[in-house]
């Protein structure tokens, strides 16, 4: 088999294999039947940006790598090629739910991969759970989802509680170096923004920060400049946007344009995208972001993963959830190799095992990965450095933020 | 039936009729509104077309100027201007051949000035130089428009609007001017003024097809007339003759 196959060629080969298996039933039947893995991602709509950067490329990269090795190792069956069955959910939650129902009941896929984003996962997780499909979400930040108590759902990212605690601790640490007190928080009116805001606000108050502004804005917002102007007028020294990619870019562009340059400028999803760095060039310097990962982290396979991503897509993975997406695939691959495609047994295996991944060790405690702490990253000279917590840091933070360039 | 043509008129009908309509049938949706209608307009005359509301007068004018839109369709029949077929042409081509139509309700451009309204009348048909001459001529005929040239058409009184509509049509230097209910809604003094204007226009060499509900004055002014009822021509004759016709007297003059 060729070392690299695009999906279409692969389907032809796989199809030919099925035909051959029908003609010669005794010849290698098992390895010709593909493992069918289903998912939806938003190819259109507001979620498409994140889905197209963080999840899609990694799904396809992983399948290519697995098939190049001769297929996914399924315990007791040898290697079987992987076939992806995927659809565009158009950033519509109800569409995603319907499509996941279809993937399970009509397409009868062997395994599921999750869609992009907190709200999407929140909606489809109960469906997967009902049918006993393990779902390991790489782009989920929600305690509410955890409270739904879905045993088949797993989250690898640090959740709002630990992510926001890390941010608050980091701010307290910075305050010990220079006077920062006035904080403005804006959040996207989506489950992601709502939960992170709810987790952050009490921590800020507890720490004695003066919250001068706390407002939400809608998903797909066009303009934040008025809001930024009034935040600037209120003298905010710390600006926190619990944002999604398009609005992270928007808030940064407009903060720069209205000359709002707080000592701490923190954006959420999208800050860690290489696109952010390429878009803002020197102005990206010193911008903080939620979560962090870069190829310098000391975990096995991290650098290899980074290089493979660049080779396949001619673009770098994002510096946060891309690697976590890849880690979920590593986990799935290991589980299937150890226990086969029996989904109940995969679940037991996920519950009981510590995995070694490109983002470090992952271990699930009642579905949550508590082995990865909340982190803060910062763009420094073109790399998104891990700056908090100290024991994970790849560089010291730059503070206060330099002026926009 | 013979027709008396006013003496000293620049055109005679020796070259045949100016406009000839033969066997025209038009429908609105599936409902016929004109039945086998034939008439002629002779060069230089004032022809009055009278009849009750809904008799088909306005429809006929719309058909003649090619305003076939909505559900109005021509089923059969011929329309010839100096022997040339007009049926099936669009309004722009019909205008280019010299038929001007002052429609019911005037259809002025209310947000445009008097001058802009007039200019639009002339711009399709005339070269720039002719347009200026034409404008001068219209201002001479209708001095009131010269005084009001900067005013928006929508702010003119009803009578002034009617004069502007006629002036705009004259800008096209038509051979045939079709007027649909020019006296509708006007005070008696203005009605007289409009009829006087129609007479002057004909004197200037323009043939006039006049549709009116003001039957008495229309027939008094016209050389000839047709009476339309339910989409058919029921009477035709010289204006004076028609005024004396018992049927006309009974139905339209309330005598």
């Amino acid at each position, binding site marked *: 088999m060729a070392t690299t196959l695009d999906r279409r060629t692969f389907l032809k080969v796989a199809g030919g294999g099925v035909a051959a298996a029908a003609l010669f039933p005794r010849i290698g039947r098992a390895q010709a039947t593909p493992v069918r893995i289903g998912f939806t991602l938003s*190819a*259109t*709509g507001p979620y*498409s*940006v994140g889905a*197209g950067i963080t999840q899609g490329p990694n799904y396809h990269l992983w399948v290519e790598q697995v098939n190049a090795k001769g297929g996914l190792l399924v315990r007791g069956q040898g290697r079987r090629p992987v076939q992806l069955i995927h659809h565009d959910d158009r950033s519509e939650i109800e569409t995603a739910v319907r499509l996941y129902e279809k993937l399970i009941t009509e397409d009868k896929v062997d395994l599921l991969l999750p869609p992009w984003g907190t709200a999407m996962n929140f909606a489809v997780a109960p469906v997967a759970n009902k049918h006993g499909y393990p779902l390991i979400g790489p782009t989920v930040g929600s305690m509410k989802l955890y409270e739904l108590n879905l045993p088949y759902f797993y989250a690898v990212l640090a959740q709002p509680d630990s992510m926001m605690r890390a941010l608050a601790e980091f701010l307290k640490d910075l305050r010990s170096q220079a006077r920062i007190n006035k904080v403005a928080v804006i959040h996207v009116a989506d489950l992601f923004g709502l939960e992170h805001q709810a987790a952050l606000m009490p921590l800020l108050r507890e720490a004695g920060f003066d919250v001068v502004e706390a*407002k*939400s*804005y*809608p998903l*797909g*917002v*066009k*303009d*934040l400049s*008025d*809001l930024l*102007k*009034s935040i600037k*007028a209120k003298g905010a020294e710390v600006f926190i946007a619990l944002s999604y990619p*398009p609005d992270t*870019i*928007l808030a940064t*562009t*407009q903060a*720069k*344009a209205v*000359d709002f340059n707080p000592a701490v400028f923190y954006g959420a999803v999208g800050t860690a995208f290489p696109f952010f760095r390429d878009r803002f*060039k020197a*102005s990206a310097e010193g911008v903080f972001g939620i979560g962090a990962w870069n190829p310098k982290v000391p975990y096995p396979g991290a650098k290899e993963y980074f290089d493979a991503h660049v080779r396949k897509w001619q673009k770098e993975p994002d510096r946060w959830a891309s690697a976590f997406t890849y880690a979920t695939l590593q986990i799935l691959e290991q589980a299937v190799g150890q226990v086969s495609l029996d989904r109940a047994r995969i679940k037991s295996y996920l519950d009981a095992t510590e995995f070694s991944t490109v983002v470090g060790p992952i271990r699930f405690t009642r579905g949550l990965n508590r082995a990865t702490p909340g982190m803060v990253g910062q763009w420094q000279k073109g790399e998104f450095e891990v700056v908090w917590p100290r024991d994970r840091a790849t560089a010291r933070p730059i503070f206060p933020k330099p002026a926009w360039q | 039936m013979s027709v008396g043509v006013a003496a000293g008129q620049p055109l005679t009908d020796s070259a045949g009729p100016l406009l000839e309509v033969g066997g025209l049938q038009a429908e609105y949706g599936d409902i016929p509104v004109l039945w086998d209608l034939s008439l002629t307009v002779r060069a230089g005359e004032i022809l009055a077309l009278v009849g009750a509301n809904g008799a088909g007068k306005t429809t006929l004018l719309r058909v003649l*100027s090619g*305003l076939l*839109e*909505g*559900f109005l369709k021509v089923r059969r029949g011929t329309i010839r201007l100096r022997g040339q077929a007009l049926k099936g042409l669009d*309004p*722009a081509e019909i*205008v*280019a051949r010299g038929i001007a*139509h002052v*429609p*019911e309700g*005037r*259809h*002025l*451009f*209310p*947000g*445009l000035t008097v001058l*802009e*309204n007039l*200019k639009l*009348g002339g*711009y*399709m*048909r005339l070269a720039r130089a002719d347009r200026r001459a034409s404008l001068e001529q219209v201002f001479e005929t209708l001095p009131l428009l010269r005084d009001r040239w900067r005013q*928006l058409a*929508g702010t003119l009184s009803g009578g002034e609007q009617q004069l502007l509509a006629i002036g705009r*049509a004259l800008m*096209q230097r038509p051979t045939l001017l079709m007027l649909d209910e020019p006296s509708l809604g006007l005070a008696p003094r203005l009605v007289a003024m409009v009829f006087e204007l129609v007479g002057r226009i004909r004197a200037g060499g323009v043939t006039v097809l006049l549709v009116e509900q003001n039957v008495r004055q229309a027939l008094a002014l016209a050389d000839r007339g047709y009476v339309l009822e339910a989409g058919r021509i029921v009477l035709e004759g010289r204006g004076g003759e028609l005024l004396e016709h018992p049927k006309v007297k009974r139905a339209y003059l309330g005598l």
Partner: protein
Amino acid sequence: MNVALLLDVAAGGLLMGGLYALIAVGLNLQYGLMRVLNVAHGEFLMIGGYLTYMLHVHLGVNPLVSILVSGPVVFAGGMGIHALLFRGLLRLKRTQEELEANSLLISFGLLFILQNAALLLWSADIKGYQYLDRPLHVLGAVFPTNRVVAFGVAAMVTALLFVFLKGTLAGTTVRALMQDPVGARLMGVKVPRVHGLCFGLGVGLAAVTGSLVSMLFELTPFIGLPYTITALVVVILGGLGSVTGSLLGGLILGVLESLGVHFTAPDLRMVISYGVLALILVLRPYGLFNPLAPRPGQASQA
């Protein structure tokens, strides 16, 4: 209350309002003139934005100069689309309602085609560039330089449009056709030709707006529809068929949105737009500045 900040916010709204006005004038040229409700109007804005993005990022063309390309290219494309899709529709129309319904369907199709074409050409990734994104300090207030420049260009383009509409016979014809189609036809106006011209002009203006928008905001293939909705609100606010109305309506909506968002939250921006729309429909259904609106006591013409 901080008066300086309020003025600052209002001025910011005015700057956005200039762009609203431009795109709304474009829509009004189509809807006001021929009752073709082009819901794909915003897609032409999106295309204009991408054209400028490509010219600037790949060929180094100044975004302002790129307007000289995006406007004419989309203008020509718009004339073509009109000839292809809408001309027959206008010829076959029997009632105004039928035309509006059919044009709505066709332009919805157009919307999906253009959006998906953009998706294929440029992918769903957000695209943007930095241009004049420095702050400009004016009388103690601060504005993004690119917004001030965009507003200036929008004002210039609008002024040119006004010169065309008011100063040339072709422009007068357009206004005449808007005000009274029957009257215009009787003057010998070649209606399909003027419609094609106006459709092209309308989407061309959308493209110019898009070029300006690309200096301020990131592009995705999906940015169009919200602008179409805003434009529709402005057209109704200012009055169907009233170019001046669209201009003033755009500025008013821009300021109202900014102040509204300032006092509430960005969540409510669309609510404010729709609120303005609802209010206008109830209080002045013909719009604020429509010269064609029937005055009290005046009978409507058949």
